[in-house]
């Protein structure tokens, strides 16, 4: 049961982080350099999960996943099962929930690079995409790693949204934090303690490694 939950949690956090990076890299790069009027709106949307209670997020996710909605209906049409209570439902929920934790460090990193970095690459004939891969992304490595670690740990620690949309199915959607909650609620404090201490320790360790690495990082931005 515990091993199932750990495996599931790691798989969920890994998948979520990977997909978030794919979305957030271009988004953050765009946000960092755009002068579009839509920018504050997009930034607000991205930051929304920071201030919203997870239950609100979960509630809207449930509404979207419901076959009563177009998206939910289309999903059922495609995959024969509703998105709620499935691994991919959790992935989508976790992505929404951890979005700001990945976008914001990346955006700060890209903003720190300033416009000149890209300009210099452009004058050498590199178009924006080549500039992104060869210059901006490698220079953003510290931010990328910070974003991945934050996104990953935040997903591991996620509770409210999973509680709303997960359905608590062992091996499928019962992640570590939910298992822990179950144990506390059913007065099984011994196991709860083990799980909680494990979560605290591993999170602490990961964050420690991140900050230590960041401290010693030699890749600096700019000239």
């Amino acid at each position, binding site marked *: 049961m515990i091993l199932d939950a750990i495996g599931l949690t790691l798989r969920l956090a890994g998948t979520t982080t990977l997909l978030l990076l794919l979305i957030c890299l271009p988004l953050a790069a765009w946000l960092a350099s755009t002068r579009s009027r839509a920018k504050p709106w997009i930034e607000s949307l991205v930051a929304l999960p920071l201030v919203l209670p997870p239950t609100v997020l979960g509630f809207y996710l*449930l*509404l979207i*996943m*419901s*076959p*009563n909605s177009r998206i939910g209906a289309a999903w059922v049409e495609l995959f024969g099962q*509703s998105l*709620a*209570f499935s691994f991919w439902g959790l992935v989508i929920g976790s992505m929404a929930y951890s979005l700001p934790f990945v976008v914001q460090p990346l955006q700060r990193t890209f903003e720190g690079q300033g416009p000149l970095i890209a300009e210099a690459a452009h004058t050498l004939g590199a178009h924006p995409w080549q500039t992104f891969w060869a210059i901006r992304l490698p220079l953003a490595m510290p931010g990328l790693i910070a974003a991945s670690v934050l996104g990953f740990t935040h997903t591991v620690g996620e509770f409210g949204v999973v*509680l*709303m949309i997960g*359905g*608590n*199915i062992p091996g*499928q959607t019962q992640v570590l934090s939910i298992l822990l909650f*179950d144990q506390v*609620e*059913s007065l099984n404090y011994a196991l709860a303690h083990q799980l909680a201490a494990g979560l605290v320790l591993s999170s602490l360790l990961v964050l420690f490694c991140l900050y230590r690495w960041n401290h010693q990082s030699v890749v600096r931005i700019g000239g």
Partner: protein
Amino acid sequence: MVVRLLFCGWLLSAGVWAEAPLTVAVTASFKPVLSALSDPFSTATGQSMRLVSASTGVLSQQILAGAPFDVFFAADRAHPQHLRDALNLPADRVTTYALGALVLVTQDPAVQTLDDLHDYAGRVIIANPLQAPYGAAADQLLDRLGFSGTRVRANNVSQARQYLSLNLATVGLTAASVAQDLPGAQAIDPTLYPVLEQQVIVLRASEQTRRLLAFLQSTEAIQMLRDMGYREPGNGEPVEP
């Protein structure tokens, strides 16, 4: 200045009114019943009550932490018993005030009756058996029926209702009290699942709390219980072990 006066006035009024009404802690699922009974109760006794509602687990924690409740309507047996032991209260402070009923909610053509669940391979929504007595009862019932599909475990009966109303699954077992207006709800023979006793614990015994419990025995209150998906305890029902 005006603000300060107003503030003093507010403090005073709060002080005056805090003495008079009963402070009643009630598990979220039973709150609608007590709300509906609130007016008839004050008409009948001249007594008012304030309802504090949360989940049974949360309210128990608050009581252990010294929350000033007069009486606590829990959703199960375990929590009032635990509180009675923890607070060293006499045995007669805990009584059963209602029996819960489980209903089958189905919008799936493959599940017309309870027995169809034996061959059903889809998802069935139940409350979390570890936390909700209704969930535990539903879990046992599913075992008994030989159900082998996926059990989606909502955090509590209200969430189970939410899942069902959003059509996130078409079949579910939940409390009759929350399934009143769900389409496709059907009653289940109460002998098929364990008795769902809901117990009340009197934390501060007084004439007022006695009156409230007595009022719950009235015809009016019993009719309300039944209307809202509960059964009254007593008369041949197993109440205490």
